[in-house]
């Protein structure tokens, strides 16, 4: 709870800092420091909250459980890593550096609301706080037409889906006479379900699927991710998406968990479609950045597994998946930003030119492909296990695994380009010792996630 206030205040501090100085570097340094302060506040929240008794602050509008705080802390830690890795690239995007950092800070405020909301209104506010800064960030490279296009597209589609979300909430309120998600769970019964409520659930599902870019609501994703400035793509595809997922799973387990037989089929078809579209389309991309956009759709398909499996492992699954996916993807984007050419050919011969960069990229790609000993394997493993335990979705598990095999194709194309093709990749900027240290650190986190995942779940 302190973190929500802290994120707001720290964001405003960064904006004021932008008025004081024009020195981009010092703003970036300040922002990085403030993100660590935010991490500190999160840890403070975590250790001062009792693991067993959830708190209900703000007249019960929020419900703070221990695993929510743990998710917040992990995501904020990922955010710190992200800021450290890309802070130089953010400085290059445009004039208003302070605002970019402040907007990212505000997105974290939205994330904290989404992981703790206990009321539909807070869900709505959280989604909006999460989304609006993203619309701005997508268009922050003002001189670039593609960036403006991305922003407009994202905004229009996002606004539309928010409307659908509100519609769903309204219908559900009509059926259950409450906005409180716990009370809603006790009012809605599977055997006597009001059609209004069912329509409401479907509307909310559509809106949330849009936010997590699940097919067929994924159309905006490739253009927005491709058009946005790369450092912000890295953020939107990872931490912001993970937050939307946490909101998704929270609502569908807590409120609609007992009705799962009514929506499981729809969502499993959505999951299968997401996996299919994401993986198959990614195969045909020529640009690594665009491939990563489709890969983020594909990975969303796997995260939907956690929503489908209404059980305790699913929570662990979503947390480990969010962390593993975020860390590996941010790492790849950090490497991508070092290169001039974003196509596969731009990676040709990277292993010879810069073996370390090639090695860490390989580990990140292994993780995304789900090779054992990396975080990505454990993440896939947890969500698959959650669904297998559920029992009746074995077909989806096998389909998902086949799709994972397809994903190997496009992830390994990068490895093939780096190691087995000849070329001299042009670098955007020099790889400093600090960068190397951070990339190795990221790589170590990916491997730790794969070998001792319990370290990241101890507080559950």
């Amino acid at each position: 709870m302190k973190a929500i206030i802290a994120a707001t205040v720290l964001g405003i501090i960064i904006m004021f800092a932008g008025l004081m100085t024009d020195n981009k570097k010092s703003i970036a340094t300040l922002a990085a420091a403030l993100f660590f302060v935010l991490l500190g506040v999160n840890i403070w929240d975590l250790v001062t909250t009792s693991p067993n008794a959830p708190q209900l602050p703000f007249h019960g509008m929020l419900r703070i459980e221990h695993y929510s705080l743990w998710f917040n802390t992990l995501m904020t830690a990922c955010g710190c890593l992200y800021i450290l890795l890309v802070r130089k690239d953010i400085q290059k995007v445009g004039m208003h550096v302070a605002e970019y950092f402040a907007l990212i800070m505000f997105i974290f405020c939205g994330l904290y609301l989404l992981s703790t909301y206990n009321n539909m209104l807070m869900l709505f506010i959280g989604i909006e706080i999460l989304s609006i800064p993203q619309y701005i960030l997508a268009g922050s490279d003002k001189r670039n037409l593609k960036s403006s296009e991305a922003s407009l597209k994202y905004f229009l589609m996002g606004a539309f889906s928010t409307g659908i979300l509100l519609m769903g909430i309204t219908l559900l309120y009509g059926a259950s006479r409450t906005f409180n998600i716990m009370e809603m769970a006790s009012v809605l019964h599977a055997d006597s379900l009001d059609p209004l409520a069912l329509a409401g659930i479907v509307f909310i599902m559509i809106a949330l699927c849009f936010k997590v870019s699940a097919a067929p609501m994924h159309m905006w994703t490739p253009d927005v991710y491709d058009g946005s400035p790369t450092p912000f793509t890295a953020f939107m595809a990872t931490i912001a998406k993970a937050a939307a997922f946490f909101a998704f799973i929270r609502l569908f387990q807590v409120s609609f968990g007992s009705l799962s037989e009514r929506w499981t089929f729809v969502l499993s078809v959505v999951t299968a479609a997401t996996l299919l579209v994401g993986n198959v389309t990614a195969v045909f991309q020529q640009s690594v950045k665009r491939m990563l956009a489709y890969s983020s759709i594909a990975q969303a398909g796997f995260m939907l597994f956690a929503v489908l499996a209404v059980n305790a492992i699913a929570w662990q699954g979503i947390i480990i998946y969010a962390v593993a996916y975020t860390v590996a993807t941010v790492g790849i984007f950090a490497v991508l930003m070092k290169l001039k050419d974003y196509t596969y050919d731009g990676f040709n011969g990277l292993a010879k030119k810069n073996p370390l960069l090639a090695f860490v990229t390989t580990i990140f790609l292994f993780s995304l492909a789900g090779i054992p000993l990396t975080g990505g394997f454990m993440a896939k493993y947890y969500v698959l296990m959650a669904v297998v335990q559920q029992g009746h979705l074995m077909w989806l598990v096998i389909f998902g695994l086949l799709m994972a095999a397809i994903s190997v194709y496009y992830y390994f194309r990068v490895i093939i380009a780096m190691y087995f093709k000849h070329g001299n990749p042009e670098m955007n900027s020099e790889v400093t010792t600090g960068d190397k240290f951070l990339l190795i650190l990221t790589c170590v986190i990916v491997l730790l996630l794969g070998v001792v995942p319990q370290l990241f779940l101890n507080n559950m």
Partner: protein
Amino acid sequence: MILILLILIPLLTGILTFAFKSGDGAKAMALISSIATLGISAYVSGANYTAPVSFSCPWIPMLGTQFSLMADGMSSMLCLLTGIVVMVVMITNTNKEVEHPGSFYGLLLLSQAGLMGVFLAYDALVFYFFWELALIPVYFLCSKWGGEKRIPVTFKFFVYTFVGSLMMLSGLIYLSLQNPGLTSYSWPDIKAAGMALPAATQQWLFWLLFIAFAIKMPIFPFHTWQPDTYEQAPTSVTIILSALMVKMGLFAVLRWLLPVVPVGVAFWSNTVIVLAIIGIVYASLIAIVQTDLKRLVAYSSIAHMGLMCAAAFSNTNMGMHGIMVQMFNHGINITGMWLMVSMIENRWGTRDMTKLGGMATVAPQMAIALVIISLANIALPLTNGFVGEFMLFNGIFESSSMYHITFMVVAGLGVILGAIYTLNMVQKAAYGNVTPMVIKKDLSANEYIGLAVIISLIIFLGVYPKPLLDLTSGVAGMLAK
């Protein structure tokens, strides 16, 4: 504790080897490491005559998985084979130059670590981890140091095996959740869970697990990656692949399939045996028309693996025992074959049989080695191949399947066809008109040592197979019930 050394030594020395810039340093490191590993695996095998060695420590308790290793007769025999083969590879490589020797030998040692892990794993998740980890170094080895078409060919190989492993993973997850009240991956729990499943479930679960193993062995029709990969891979890696990696598939059938879903196995036995036997005949026929030595040996390997797979599903004591023996023997023989192929290619500059001839005149030592190894490959009595194949055929014949005689007769065709293509190869390469050598040289000292190890094992185990039989009789007896 000693078991973990079998994995740690190649793993750590492998990582260290990456740092070597000079070829000599890397070779020395790799050779020392492989000898040390061989020594330990010999010790483990020796200890096995009294009691199986095991090791266990907690790993991820939440998932019900433990880092547990176990060396019974079958595991220690395969570890010993791995130790011997890798050492022979390292010995015969000492006078060869490769690009980036540090990475090459490092990756070879890493793949050895993965193999050891697969053979020792006593926990399904540990098994899966090593199963994948053995593959990754091989992927890089083939893609970096292989032949002209290496990249697409290796990629096909990787995707094939990866699809299989993912299937297996889903099967193992399913099994681990079947014990009421606990999630456990340890072998006894997986086995208990699998055996308790109803017949219908076992029948589909069988394929989920078996496809991964069938791709690895490879069994017809999952074999299409194999000849290309063997042809394109550098010889050292081909040896690792054909002598050791394919044994992973067979080993997995014996450890993780037959005891786990016995009803499913009984239901599908005939189907698998038919596929295996089609593979034997089909691969043998194709081998006959090959002119490329590498492809010939590759197809002959499919035929041999098919025979072992057929016997694995015969459910007889003799058959199981035969597989144990033949896994070892095939590993030794095929290593010898590949060494000969690589020496021929090195001396004559071609692998095309039509352009070879007269080895017995210009390089008599090589010719003698080629003849002995080829005879072992067609299972002539007094070579190790005979002991194994005899037991395999005996096993298939004794099986309770109603088609056992047909199976045995058709599989027996493989032996005849095997004699045709192998002897044809010997005749073309060793005898006939002398074709000029590019490098005029008989065996060099290190090749001499490597082949001496192989040939003495061929003859020793052909005359006195008792140590091998004793080592594995416990496991074989347990498998055939």
